[in-house]
């Protein structure tokens, strides 16, 4: 499959599927009379597909905030309960949920958590935005998984066999790495560049045209969460740390300790939720 063909496929994507248990959990919540948009948001912001869908809608031409909205809580205020409810009721799901789908879900959630902690520590104004970037950084993998399922399987297999990173095999087989694919889709969906660049450049953050700091935090969190073994990114290899990016966000030893301690605690809290998702699956 050549690059033009892939671009065309990306252009045709209407919506991406997500994990069935998350959608059924949200459907149950929607049926409850007392439910609020904010409560729904707390679940939506744990899932990269639903989060990107919400952001796609709020940044669309009809809602009229092009490239402006980068967090679930802001999207919710603008979209309102009814739109969110409709999005949930009509969202598409994976017909067959594989272990790797749950792995990627956990990896994304873990990465978002780490991003939020580091962003706060670095006193970035809107840490939620950085965790959103972390949450959806691997959107490209979902695209390959759902649009090119055969390729996806072959890529995972080859990466494991030859000891290569996913993105190396992706580039070889389909011409794009998942970062680029996620970037193309995010741009097509009118998401703000503060999200597009970190997605596109999460493996080479110093090459991002702008928002290098967010890209560097996502890059580092991606590595950190894989090293901790929370979830799985598809291949078994922890990516190499970009030294220039590390220089940019360098944490001292004691800061690092702080990050790990807080991350440990938050991941423990998340485990209840991810376990629920796994058991329902």
């Amino acid at each position, binding site marked *: 499959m050549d690059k033009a063909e892939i671009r065309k496929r990306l252009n045709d994507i*209407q*919506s991406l599927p997500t994990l069935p248990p998350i959608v059924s959990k949200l459907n149950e919540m929607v049926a409850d009379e007392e439910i*609020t*948009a904010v409560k729904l948001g707390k679940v939506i912001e744990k899932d990269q597909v639903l989060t990107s*869908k919400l952001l*796609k*809608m709020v940044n*669309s*031409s*009809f*809602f*009229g*905030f092009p490239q*402006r*909205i980068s967090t679930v*809580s*802001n999207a919710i*205020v*603008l*979209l*309102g*309960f*009814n*739109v969110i*409810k*409709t*999005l949930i*009721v*009509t*969202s*598409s799901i994976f017909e067959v949920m594989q272990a790797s789908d749950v792995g990627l879900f956990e990896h994304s959630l873990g990465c978002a958590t780490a991003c939020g902690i580091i962003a706060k520590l670095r006193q970035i*104004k809107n840490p939620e935005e950085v965790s959103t970037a972390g949450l959806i950084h691997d959107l490209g993998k979902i695209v390959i998984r759902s649009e090119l399922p055969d390729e996806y399987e072959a890529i995972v297999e080859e990466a494991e066999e030859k000891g290569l990173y996913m993105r190396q095999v992706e580039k070889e087989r389909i011409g794009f790495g998942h970062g680029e694919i996620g970037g193309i889709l995010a741009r097509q969906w009118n998401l703000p560049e503060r999200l597009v660049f970190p997605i596109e450049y999460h493996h080479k953050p110093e090459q991002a045209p702008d928002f290098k700091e967010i890209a560097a935090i996502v890059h580092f969190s991606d590595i950190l969460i894989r090293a901790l073994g929370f979830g799985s990114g598809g291949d078994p290899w922890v990516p190499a740390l970009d030294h220039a990016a590390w220089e940019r966000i360098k944490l001292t030893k004691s800061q690092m300790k702080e990050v790990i301690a807080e991350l440990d605690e938050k991941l423990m809290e998340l485990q209840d939720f991810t376990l629920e998702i796994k058991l329902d699956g």
Partner: protein
Amino acid sequence: MARLALVTSNTFNRQDERLCLEAKGHLVSYKQDVARALETILSDPPDLLIIEKGLERNLDREVIAALKNNLQLALMPIILVVSERDIATGLDWDAYSVDDVISSQATIEELLTRIELSLARAHRVADNNPLTKLPGNSSILKSIQNMLDEQADHAVCYVDIDNFKPYNDKYGFSRGDEVIRMVGRILVNVVQEHCGSNGFVGHVGGDDFVFHVPNNEAEPVCQDVINNFNALIPLFLDEDDIEAGYFTSTDRQGNERRFPLTSLSIAVVPCEPGKYSHYGQVAATAAKLKKKVKALEGSNYFIDRRSGY
């Protein structure tokens, strides 16, 4: 020429039928999957939706209800495609709040006629603001007068954006339009979440909005509106201005000066049953209140506590 969305299993989707619609200059998007269609409709609404009854998982009812409950899309006409049997047995029109109905066996000429009629009818009733799609002046007047006549215990709330003109001058019209859309969305969502169909939101024009809600909801609604506005407005300001706490632009006399960051003012006029009989009286009270609330710094609401007119 109109933009149509056709969500049917395959009805009205033969090549000659497609050609007929296109020959009339309509831009038609064909969809079979309701869920996917809905996402497109919500993010880029067509002028008219034609949807077939009984599509997968009974999502048709869900979708129709969702669109008709959406304050900004309620005026988009929906034509329901039904079987001959449905026409014979009749349908529950409260469950299907559509604008028109057509048999799946109808000719393309009939479909075309219904499309033209629906579009013309929608055009007649619309005094919606083009920017926010919210009801405009005549609907606002009608809604408030109805509320007074019915002696519903509501409060009428007048909203405007402080220092909007200098904002527009500094940041440009297109960002100004975004701020207005943002305020419109916040009002619609907060009013809907608190009061459902008991509330009303209209857009007078420019940076002026009006809404009315049951009296006991007025205060919580105002609080939520202001909280949401304060959470979002930084996205529409430059970082330097946020840091400085003001922005520089020109005033009405053309002098350059500093303006406080954009905020929201709401004047709340409670209308206990019998207190006002005419819309004009409410507006007069609001005009006096507005001066008071505008004099306060930042985003505020101010409730008229006087009894009697």
